[in-house]
């Protein structure tokens, strides 16, 4: 394993130190591992807190700022944050209008955020939460922990963030978050495994002619392994999975997301295929993101996330945002 780190133990803290140095608009607490807007809390505004294991950068810390999150709690690599972090973040962003937790659906994230939410509620902070579970590769049934939260998290954070800036109520902000989640689906493909620093070697092994379909964002192996194929076919497999679960139509927001080790030139090649697929199905990609947004350390591969827009969602997507990872309109 070769990585640009000082040690597996310090990687999260060291990266937070870098974020603090790079982004004066953020207030970073590397000790307790919390990233706040420098101006937090905003009085009268619903506070937005998200978090999860590290290794998915820019998610979540890179989405703290005007029009998106108020704070993020990064855990150790691929390990959900502990309740203390979430509690401190929640208190720190409470501007009197309640706090929304945006939680990706993993057992660890759910449990830790729930414990924190209970304690915050006991201390009189109104907390609601949105659970993101967009990954169609997981069968959602009694026989699994439910669908994973992946790419749609970016959409949920952006759109709830935009609505929160308008002074909307906690219930309304939570509601739109759920709507975005309900209208979004994702599917991921890996060309290589990632290497968790503390583990020191790849989580799984792929032959030079194999790819892994339906992967998550923690190096969990996917559901099937197939032969490597041209981008056109791989994109079609991913989009077929999305389309089978949520028929594609109308105006959509689409993200072709890199898993961390895949260069932008390849993501654009995939995006071309995804856009062609959408048009073939009668859907129109009116908004898009192409790049690294929800990564899995150094994994090579991509995920595609589609959200069926409404006029309101499009308007909120277009609203100004000013974070290290997403910025427009100011």
């Amino acid at each position, binding site marked *: 394993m070769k990585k640009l780190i000082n040690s*597996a133990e310090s990687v999260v803290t060291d990266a937070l130190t870098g974020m603090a140095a790079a982004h004066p608009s953020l207030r970073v607490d590397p000790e307790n591992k919390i990233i706040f807007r420098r101006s937090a809390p905003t009085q009268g505004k619903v506070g937005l807190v998200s978090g999860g*294991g590290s290794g998915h950068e820019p998610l979540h810390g890179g989405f703290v700022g005007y029009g998106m999150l108020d704070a993020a709690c990064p*855990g*150790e*690599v*691929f*390990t*959900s*944050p*502990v*309740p*203390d972090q979430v509690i401190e973040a929640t208190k720190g962003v409470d501007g009197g209008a309640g706090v929304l937790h945006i939680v990706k659906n*993993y*057992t*660890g994230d759910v*449990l*830790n955020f729930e*414990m924190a939410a209970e304690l915050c509620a006991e201390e009189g902070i109104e907390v609601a939460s949105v659970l993101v579970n967009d990954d169609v*590769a*997981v*069968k959602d049934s*009694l*026989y*699994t*922990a439910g669908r*994973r939260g992946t790419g749609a998290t970016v959409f949920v954070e952006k759109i709830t963030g935009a609505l929160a800036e308008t002074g909307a109520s906690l219930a309304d902000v939570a509601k739109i978050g759920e709507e975005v989640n309900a209208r979004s689906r994702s599917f991921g493909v890996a060309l290589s495994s990632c290497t*968790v620093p*503390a*583990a020191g070697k790849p*989580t*799984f092994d792929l032959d030079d002619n194999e790819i892994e379909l339906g992967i*998550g964002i*923690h*190096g*969990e*192996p996917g*559901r099937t392994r197939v032969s490597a194929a041209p981008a056109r076919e791989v994109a079609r497999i991913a989009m077929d999975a999305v389309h089978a679960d949520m028929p594609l139509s109308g105006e959509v927001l689409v993200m072709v997301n890199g898993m961390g080790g895949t260069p932008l030139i390849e993501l654009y090649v995939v995006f071309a295929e995804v856009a062609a697929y959408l048009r073939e199905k009668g859907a129109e990609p009116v908004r898009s993101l192409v790049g690294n947004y929800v990564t899995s350390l150094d994994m090579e591969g991509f995920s595609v996330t589609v959200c069926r827009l409404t006029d309101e969602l499009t308007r909120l997507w277009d609203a100004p945002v000013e974070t290290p990872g997403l910025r427009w309109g100011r």
Partner: protein
Amino acid sequence: MTGGRTENHPHLLGGAATLMDAQFFTAWIEEIARVVTANRDHLTRLDAAIGDADHGANLHRGFTAVLEALSAKPADSPGAILTLTGTTLIRKVGGASGPLYGTAFRQMGSRLGPGADVTLTELASAVEAAVAGVQKLGGASEGDKTMVDALAPAARALTEAAQGGAKTGEALDAARLAAEEGARATIPLQARKGRASYLGERSIGHEDPGAASTALILGALHAAAG
């Protein structure tokens, strides 16, 4: 895996009615920390196969913090020791195993209450409380391929041994064996909870990391008894 023992309480092997004190529970926690460290890579490898390759690191971080917490403000009763252990795990581990193991230890601590000495029957009841706490929080049943598959049989074995008037040493050995067997028995199962469930059928053929660490924790309990 690496076994072994740090501190012994040979007197515990004496008879059914032998009491377990704060020193015993401290020895247990220390032994857990030792075996978790010794098996850190093993647990991480198990987690790499059907999860996200962090279970060893998570427990290592957790029990290292527990040792620090215990030496910073020594808890004086078995219940207080276990409660502090659980609280520290919740505060330091994260992931799925942090809240789950944290709850397990906190449930044991609260079931034991403030008393200075613990009987085998009380211990069995505490481990039953741990099982109930983990199941309530995580919603897993036996057979879902989680830590419950090792913890629940261990609790049953302890309870049966206590009811049957077994000696403490024998009872702890039975609990250890039941946990180990439960962990091994997760291999052919398809996971229905936690991260491994995402794999569907591909989770079959691998031991659940949380069940494996539970077996280590029960092994440490037996080792602490000498």
